[in-house]
């Protein structure tokens, strides 16, 4: 137990947003680990407001705590001012529920959503007093486990984890907790427990480098979903009832890792969702329900679901929203229905500027789709449209960049002429966000190296020059950060010393542009003698062994390769929900495409 007196009287009055470190939120479970048969500290390597927004984190918290045998608490990465105070006062990382020190838990389970959180993982382990490298941990150290999408290539951080969970975590976390409890009863040694956990399906043990197949929840309706969320006092990035309407997306965008590794599409049933929404609104008091998934407008019964939710909840001042919009009139009509009261702006993601390039990435969107959606949006009174693009994609030429600039200009002109009828042409704005393509494992583009930093910078300048216009504002992602992300996404074990060194040099919150220190990272790589461009920029051969080949995420390498070849020819592959089976291989282990109201029950 950490010294609460020191925390409350000495430390918290001196840090920004102290409420991040207090816990005590509504619906938090403060049972304490001492009574439990097995305990886990769910660790999120980013700041509280970010971590509290992730639905996967909430799901695991609920599943573990719903069993009287187990206890889960939460810990987030302390902001640098808090970390400094914790070190000054020798206060270890602790669970927010009972202020128990991190090292007192049986398991520390990290959620790895994003590669640029790796230095935070190490900083949290260090604050916990747990040795960074799994191989030197001893009997009394907790077992350190990772999960989340970055587990699909765990090699760069493999040295720091005893185990990595690959795929959906709902079932496997219960198996892990039960096994820990059983082994503890037997009085087993730590190494023995780790070995026995590594035999659970979907669990990867970096020390053994065993081939592993991802776990997949076959039927989302049978899976647990929380009926209570912990409600933060500090506004989280996503602070609302998030209703996961489905998992997976088979639109097949070739750059998108989530669209590959969460296949097949599994929808939750309509009645189930309505009942979850009802309980969640009652237990949290939130004023918004958000339909969450990779592409919620694709949920088979989205109109019916929205209508029922609005009918049920509007009278209590609760709104319903749809975070991910398709570029089509259907989505727009829905948005108009739902967002009657929330006129913040509409976001579309055409991703590429020319039809050829959109075909290369299999984004089944035409210019007509975008233009008519934008016209619709402006004519229904929206003044702000946000557009997302990506540069540095495989097979990209400068013509595709011209295409982005042209498209944005045409959308702006369209908006002006629509708004002119209302006499408000001057108010129309188009905000464009341009990210750099980061090749991700288990996608058709996994073999392609990222453009060099010089090339990405040139492309950004090229675009900036062509998009200087009143009403058009363009923002670019930091090239150095995207470069690092690519190195860790595609890298191998050789990268671990660089992460350790960067952490020691003071790198934290690398995904935050105001915290990211490209200079320290350069220094770290130089000092350990590792060239990150070997991983970020190099193209891999189709026949080459990839660092993540032993991790099977469901989609087959043959399928990915076929998709890469079709991309080179700018050939589209239809969605298997409407077209033929693409033979991706994800329908296995009992999982198949399950649509609400279709192949349902």
């Amino acid at each position, binding site marked *: 137990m950490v010294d609460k007196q020191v925390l*409350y*009287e*000495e430390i*918290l*009055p001196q840090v920004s*947003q*102290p*409420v991040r470190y*207090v816990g*005590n*939120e*509504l619906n*938090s479970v403060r049972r304490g680990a001492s009574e439990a048969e097995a305990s886990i500290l769910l660790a999120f390597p980013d700041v509280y407001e970010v971590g509290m927004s992730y639905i996967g984190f909430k799901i695991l918290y609920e599943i573990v705590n719903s069993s009287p045998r187990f206890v889960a608490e939460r810990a987030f990465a302390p902001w640098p001012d808090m970390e400094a105070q914790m070190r000054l006062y020798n206060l270890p990382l602790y669970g927010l529920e009972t202020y128990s020190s991190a090292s007192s838990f049986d398991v520390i389970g990290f959620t790895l959503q994003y590669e640029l959180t790796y230095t935070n993982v190490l900083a949290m382990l260090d604050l916990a007093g747990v040795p960074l490298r799994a191989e030197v941990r001893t009997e009394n150290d907790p077992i350190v486990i990772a999960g989340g999408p970055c587990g699909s290539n765990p090699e760069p951080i493999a040295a720091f984890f005893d185990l990595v969970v690959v795929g959906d975590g709902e079932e496997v976390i219960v198996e892990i907790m039960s096994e820990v409890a059983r082994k503890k009863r037997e009085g087993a040694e730590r190494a023995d427990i780790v070995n026995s956990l590594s035999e659970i399906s979907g669990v990867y043990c970096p020390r053994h480098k065993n081939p592993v197949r991802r776990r997949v929840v076959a039927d989302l309706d049978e899976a647990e979903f929380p009926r209570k969320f912990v*409600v*933060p*006092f*500090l*506004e989280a990035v996503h602070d609302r009832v998030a209703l996961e309407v489905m998992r997976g997306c088979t639109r097949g965008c070739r750059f998108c890792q989530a669209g590959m590794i969460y296949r097949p599409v599994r929808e939750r049933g309509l009645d189930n969702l309505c009942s979850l929404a009802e309980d969640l*609104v*009652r*237990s*949290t*008091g*939130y*004023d918004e329900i958000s339909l969450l998934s990779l592409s919620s407008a694709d949920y088979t019964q989205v109109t019916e679901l929205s209508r029922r939710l609005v009918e049920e909840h509007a009278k*209590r*001042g*609760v709104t319903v929203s749809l975070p991910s919009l398709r570029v089509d009139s259907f989505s727009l009509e829905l948005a108009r229905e739902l967002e*009657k*009261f*929330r*006129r913040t702006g509409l976001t579309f993601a055409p991703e590429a500027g020319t039809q050829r390039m959109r075909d290369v990435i299999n984004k089944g969107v035409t210019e007509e789709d975008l233009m008519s959606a934008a016209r619709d949006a402006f004519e229904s009174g929206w003044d702000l449209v946000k557009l997302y693009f990506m540069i540095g994609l495989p097979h990209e030429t400068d013509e595709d960049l011209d295409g982005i600039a042209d498209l944005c200009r045409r959308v702006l002109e369209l908006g002006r002429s629509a708004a002119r009828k209302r006499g408000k042409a001057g108010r129309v704005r188009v905000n464009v966000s341009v990210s750099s393509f980061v090749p991700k494992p288990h996608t058709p583009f996994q073999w392609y190296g990222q453009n060099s930093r010089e090339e990405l910078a040139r492309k950004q300048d090229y675009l900036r020059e062509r998009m200087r216009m009143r009403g058009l504002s363009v923002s670019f992602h930091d090239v150095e950060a995207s470069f690092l992300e690519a190195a860790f996404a595609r890298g191998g074990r050789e990268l671990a010393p660089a992460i350790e060194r960067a952490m020691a040099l003071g790198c934290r919150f690398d995904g935050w542009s105001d915290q990211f220190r490209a200079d320290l990272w350069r220094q770290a790589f130089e000092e350990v003698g590792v060239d990150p461009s070997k991983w970020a920029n190099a193209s891999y051969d189709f026949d080459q062994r990839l660092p993540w080949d032993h991790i099977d995420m469901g989609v087959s390498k043959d399928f990915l390769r076929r998709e890469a070849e079709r991309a080179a020819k700018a050939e589209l592959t239809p969605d298997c929900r409407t077209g033929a089976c693409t033979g991706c291989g994800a329908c296995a282990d009992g999982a198949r495409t399950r649509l609400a109201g279709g192949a349902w029950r």
Partner: protein
Amino acid sequence: MVLRVRIVKGEEARFVPHLGFMRAFERAMRRAEIPVAYSEGYHPLPKFSFASALGVGITSEAEYADIQLDPDGPEIGVEEAFDALGAKMPPGLAVVAACSYWGKSSLASRVEYASYRTSACPGLNDAASVFAGLCTSPGMVTTKSGQKEVDIRKLVRKISVADGGALEFVCACGGRAHLRPENLLAHLSSIAGANLNAVRLRIHRTGLFFVENGELVSPMACKCKDLVIAKGWKPGELS
């Protein structure tokens, strides 16, 4: 009807910023299914308002809020609303009193003074007595627009040393004149020649007051009816 409630912000919630406190209260009202009136317009908001923001780190037994009830909604009495809301408050926050309010003016426009009690601070006791005896005492205070020098003595209606060396004081609070309690304590430590940071004082708000005929009165004392007080709860001596 307007429902006026008095809320305690306890030790567990003392680091919750004002905005978070308001949101937490709004959610508690929704969980309790209090029939709150909503504003008109594109983005209807529940109609409720607070008397005065409290600084981060300060506990309080005197946070007041007015809730406008929906005239077309289900009828609800003060006691019923008090019980419903009380059952749904998050950890660290509690409703300790409620009444109906039948006047027109908002809480924020009527509040003029707040009372506070600190933890024991023997080092500041003499300074407090000296300060109490002064007619004017210029010092630096924090305002929304930054630091500025004002006559702090004018903003303090009463200050005394309680048994055990704690300070109790009543100072200006609200739109017309306002003094943050931490500014007064910093001022006293500069009089004492001490470093306030080293003192680590705890501050507790004990009351908020309107002024009627020159006297301090509780926000639940004028134009209010149907007062309900939580069982066993006794307001601090200053309120």
